[in-house]
């Protein structure tokens, strides 16, 4: 067993990288969710130009490879637009967030379409505004459909965070690479792989938890005994 362990000092270094990985994941996730929502809703807009712009974004974000987008963001964009971008964390998160937004928007679009039309019509009949409809009626119901694929997508983004090591950010993989020369590489990378695995299982678990909480809102137990009673009481 000891053969598969590193020294405490080495774990300490890796942990610093792990924290960086988590930070990048958090930042790209936040941006990704916001973009997914905005673009996903925009994909269904009544205005053709909004729909078109959203489609272009989706095709771009999904068509370009996230690793290439990352390098474009890190090396081409700052020089091209003269934005002196010193904050790699922001850059990397934007690249990964755009990537996530492209896929997430399609998830959200599909989920909104899966909400029965009657729900929209009922909320029009109640005179809710367009945003209120979305906020109180459509999205809460779409959430059920959104969560499972969004969980998978988040794990994809976690995997994507490893790419930032290539543009000079000190994430888990970058630290591992710096230690590579002086540590048994088999043990080192196994440890790193396991760290990613644990993190992704954690994400998985969080999403499952969220799913069960959302499901509880819809609780539709088939005619239970208590319900039969209430039926009798009424008629």
């Amino acid at each position, binding site marked *: 067993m000891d053969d598969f362990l590193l020294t405490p*000092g080495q774990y300490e*270094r890796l942990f*610093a*990288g792990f*924290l*960086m990985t988590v*930070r990048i994941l958090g930042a790209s996730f936040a941006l990704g969710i916001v973009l997914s929502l905005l673009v996903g809703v925009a994909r269904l807009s009544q205005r053709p130009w909004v729909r078109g712009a959203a489609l272009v974004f989706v095709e771009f974000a999904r068509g370009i490879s996230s690793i290439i987008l990352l390098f474009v963001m*890190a*090396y081409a964009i*700052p*020089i*091209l637009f*003269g*934005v*002196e*971008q*010193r*904050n*790699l*964390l*922001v850059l990397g998160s934007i690249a990964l967030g755009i990537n996530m937004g492209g896929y997430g928007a399609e998830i959200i679009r599909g989920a909104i379409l899966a909400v029965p039309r009657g729900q929209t019509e009922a909320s029009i009949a109640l005179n809710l505004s367009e945003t209120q409809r979305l906020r109180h009626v459509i999205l809460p119901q779409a959430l059920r459909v959104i969560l499972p694929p969004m969980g998978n997508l988040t794990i994809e983004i976690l995997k994507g965070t490893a790419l930032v090591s*290539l*543009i*000079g*950010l*000190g994430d888990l993989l*970058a*630290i591992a*690479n*710096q*230690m*590579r*020369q*002086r540590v048994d590489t088999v043990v080192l990378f196994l440890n790193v792989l396991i760290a990613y695995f644990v993190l992704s299982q954690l994400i998985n678990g969080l999403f499952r938890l969220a799913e069960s909480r959302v499901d509880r809102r819809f609780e539709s137990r088939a005619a239970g005994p208590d319900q039969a009673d209430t039926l009798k009481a009424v008629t």
Partner: protein
Amino acid sequence: GGDDVTDDTPQVGGDEGTEDTTTDETTDGTDDGADDGATGETTAGGDLLAELQEAGVVRVGIADEEPYGYVDDDGNVTGQAPEVARRVLEELGIEEIDAQVVAFESLIAGLQAGQFDMITAGMYINPDRAQQILFSDPDYCVGEAFAVPEGNPQDISDLQSVADNPDVTLAILSGAVEEGYADTAGVPDDQIEFFSDVNAQYEALQAGRVDAVIGTTLTVLTQVEDMDGFEATESFFPLDEDGEEILGCGGYGFRNDDQEFRDAFNDELNRLQDEGELLPIITDFGFAEEDIERAQELTVEDLAG
């Protein structure tokens, strides 16, 4: 070509407050928490030095290459260049350095894009690079050597001997000067394997993917020291088109806009060099005294063409 695009953006200088957290975030977590201050925005003109002095921290780029600039076992940034830079910057009132590890070929792009404020990777000064960025005066000059399996089975001594032996595959660091040396010596393309990572070259040698690695004598010596069954060849100086020997002399890189910072750094560097302060720092990393003395007579103008 000195014009840097950052010229057009003087207005970004003001909002230092927003940058407070960012230095923190751009660290790679390798240097033990030496990133408590803000460095502020880099802008045109010479206020970078003042800003750095104010913040007390400078961000540097390294390529993780022993002994020039690397991360040691404990995660600390060290090496000949970072250590010298530390000493010089101390004189300028900047206490800490905060390093980012990037691929060697991305050092200049990273500097230009503003990801860090100077290169402390022992980068050789040559005319191509000097067109892009500013260099300090050199602080060392060394020759080249090969890392080869023990006993040097392919009998490699210089680049000509590689060019003459089609069985030899040579590892070269992508974006480094050795590529040009190999071209001049007429090494065919299919004998060259490019790497973007110094360590990967030596791992490839160990794995038998390549037959030799070319690098500065120092790099090769440091690397083979840790490797069983490999040795360094005699140091040599590669030849240019005219058959003249090329000296490889390393210095510190700065953005073209940061002339004042470069000058201030250069003045202190030369002063410390003259006082012999740097000698012990550099020799600590395996350099010979003559490597340093060779550099003392040269200025950046001699090398930048």
